[in-house]
């Protein structure tokens, strides 16, 4: 491969890594949000048991899961700085609202678990936690949906340094609402993606919780919920594609044309069916894997549908990439970092799964 070709593909490698970490975030962090939704929906005699199962499942891991999102953002602003600037401008309002959700979810959860007192204060934190868990994924999905459907107004090229006009000098005659509200607020497609994201996270949480539930009763509860959520996800996915056909031709074309898209649909369908069957037959571990595969396929389907655009329909991944040095350095950092992190994760895993180390304090 010649140097030129390598230069050309580098941005795509970085973009791939970003989708991978977004994938990790969906599978790990997403399920934590879903847990919050089930906390809100907890019903029946087993309500408290359900809530504490959810809390135990989220508690030890949500912060580490959260770092994946931070990684995506950092990669975005380092490797695609112009894209970051434009997205953060056009989506200022939904991102800000999402951040409020992130802050409230994380801190309310911690505050709730910190105090052992079962009082009104604690219940209030619980309520804030679960509502924030519900709103945040919707907004995340809305942002991605707006971007994918090509509704980010990319008005001007980069302004020069040194007192020159704004990077994003407002295109004349565009009102505040035109620029900052309607692109996302007025897009049924974006809201469909938002709903799908929420549904997906909720579904993932229920599927994982079937494995983690300590009692048959709880397991049955979450099995039922996983099946219900699965049905909702299928409906929402169909609706989203339907809206895409009408409103987001670019996404629709990406999702329906070509062999790769077809293969992706096939894998998704197989995963979905496997998950349903596995849940019905109480094969919960298999169901968990299938659910994760299904969610990953949906995510990669989105990524593929907007390839090679970063901000469709005008700016490609290559066009918005940072200089080559930066990309190379970041990829090396990622390599070295992974080399350190992987053994650390393995060590952590072995420490807590037993078997590995056999230190026994007498």
């Amino acid at each position, binding site marked *: 491969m010649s140097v030129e070709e390598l230069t050309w593909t580098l941005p795509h490698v970085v973009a791939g890594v970003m989708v991978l970490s977004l994938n990790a975030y969906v599978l790990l962090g997403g399920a934590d949000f879903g847990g919050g939704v089930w906390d809100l929906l907890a019903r029946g005699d087993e309500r408290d048991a359900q809530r504490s199962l959810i809390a135990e499942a989220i508690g030890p891991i949500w912060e580490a899961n959260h770092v994946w999102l931070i990684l995506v953002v950092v990669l975005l602003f380092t*490797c695609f700085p112009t894209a*970051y600037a434009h997205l953060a401008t056009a989506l200022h309002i939904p991102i800000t609202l999402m951040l409020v959700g992130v802050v409230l979810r994380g801190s309310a959860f911690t505050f709730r*678990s910190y105090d052992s007192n079962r009082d009104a204060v604690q219940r209030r934190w619980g309520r804030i936690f679960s509502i924030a868990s519900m709103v945040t994924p919707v907004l995340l999905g809305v942002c991605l949906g707006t971007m994918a459907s090509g509704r980010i107004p990319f008005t001007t090229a980069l302004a020069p340094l040194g007192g020159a006009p704004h990077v994003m000098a407002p295109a004349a005659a565009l009102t505040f609402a035109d620029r900052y509200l309607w692109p996302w607020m007025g897009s049924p497609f974006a809201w469909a993606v938002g709903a799908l994201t929420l549904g997906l996270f909720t579904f993932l949480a229920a599927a994982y919780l079937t494995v983690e539930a300590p009692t048959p009763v709880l397991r049955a509860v979450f099995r039922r919920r996983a099946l219900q959520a699965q049905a909702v996800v299928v409906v929402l996915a169909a609706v989203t594609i339907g809206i895409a056909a009408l409103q987001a031709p670019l996404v629709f074309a990406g999702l329906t044309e070509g062999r790769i898209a077809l293969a992706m649909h096939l894998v998704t369908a197989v995963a979905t069916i496997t998950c349903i069957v596995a849940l019905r037959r109480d094969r919960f571990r298999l169901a968990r894997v299938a659910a994760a595969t299904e969610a990953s396929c949906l995510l990669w389907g989105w990524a593929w549908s907007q390839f090679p655009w970063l901000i469709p329909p005008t700016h490609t991944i290559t066009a918005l990439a940072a200089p080559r040095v930066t990309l190379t350095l970041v990829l090396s950092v990622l390599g070295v970092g992974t080399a350190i992190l992987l053994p650390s994760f393995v060590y*952590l*895993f072995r420490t807590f799964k037993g078997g590995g*180390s056999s230190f026994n304090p007498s």
Partner: protein
Amino acid sequence: MSDLFAARSQMAVSLAFHIIFAVVGIGMPALMVMAEWRWQRTGDPVLLELAKRWAKGTAILFAVGAVSGTVLSFELGLLWPTFMAQAGAVIGMPFSLEGFAFFTEAIFLGIYLYGWQRIAPRAHLLAGIVVAVSGALSGAFVVCANAWMNAPTGFRVVNGQVTDVDPIAAMFNAAAPAEVVHMTLAAFAATGFAVAGVHALALRRGTVHRAFHRAALQIALLMAVPSALLQPLSGDLSARGVATRQPMKLAAMEGHLRTGPAALVIGGWPDAMTLTHRGAIEIPGAISLLLHGDPTASIRGLDAVPLADRPPVTVVHLAFQIMVGCGMVLAAVALWTLWRLRRRRRGYGAPLPDDRPFLTALVVASPLGFVALEAGWTVTEVGRQPWIMQDVLRTADAVTPVPGLTVPFVGFTLLYIGLAVTVAFLLWRQLLKTGVGEVPVGMTGELPVPAALLAMGTVPVSPAASDRP
């Protein structure tokens, strides 16, 4: 409120909030590791209890640090898109490195918190050391990014576009070494004195757990005292760097209004319009002497540049004085610590838990490290104005075109005030329950490994669950 001012205020509030938790995330792991190391050397169970308690305290604050840090990484784009569009490729690398430092910190904090009985003592201590080191490293990485805003290098501007990007040169910019050292010392001094103050308060009030609080106090002082003594030296180094790279920041810090020999201005109120001081004590030539060894050496004052290029002198000067004042008090307390230690060695004076004047001093000094920290950041950031990247990009040109920024500013401010009050309330309740009054040694015990965790085979990396009953 103008949108630019709202954006600046929102950035300031978010950073001022985050830095508290970031600093605790650097300082506390070092404390708990020292306690555990001493425990392994002496076998004193009080020290083990102490290590576990400090670890538990770290756990809650870590979560708030994580969410407020997430907000910041989005805010860089939400508020300063032009800056990020230009700077991202140049200075993103330290942020990527920081990301890995967070991961490492989170993984080993999980091992530390949940692994007391699962791994050998040596390995456990080592995990703690990894947490402490990666915490300090993640701080150092961001500060490199901040130093670059003070001394931008590693790129050229051609036709208004950034070219010839060299992220490594940018990361190791001229301002970075002094800033990283000063910041890291600040983290140790601020956390050390804050913790020392809490335990000094317990001892002063009288407690049955003197041994516990005494051990805590000793370790906290072990960290706080050297940092507080080194801090003025490191601050002097920072000031020399500022003098060469950012003369207007120096002029604002020192309240040096007119070009000429610079006096040391103590107190008073500088007036940016008339370029005069009101009610200040001035020691003529002192700053010139400090910087150039010659009291008559001329130093550029604020009047050397047009009004539009001057930083807000009042805020910067006052903040600088607050930082230096706090630094002097802390250094004095540190010297007192050494002096009474020497006396004790020779057999004079009261033992630590009975030395009431000293305990009182520690209680009073307790918040000063954090006050200096906030003041110091105000100096660095406000002193850089009107530039977001010194001499390259103005803050006014970097701000987002989104209007109505007062709304998110007010919103986030209220949110942070709410969080701060809640955290303080929870910590205080915890302290009342177990800290200041009585310390039920041995009660904290093992942090349980949640059952769900074992079932799932996932990795525990956040401590949030540890406090659940």
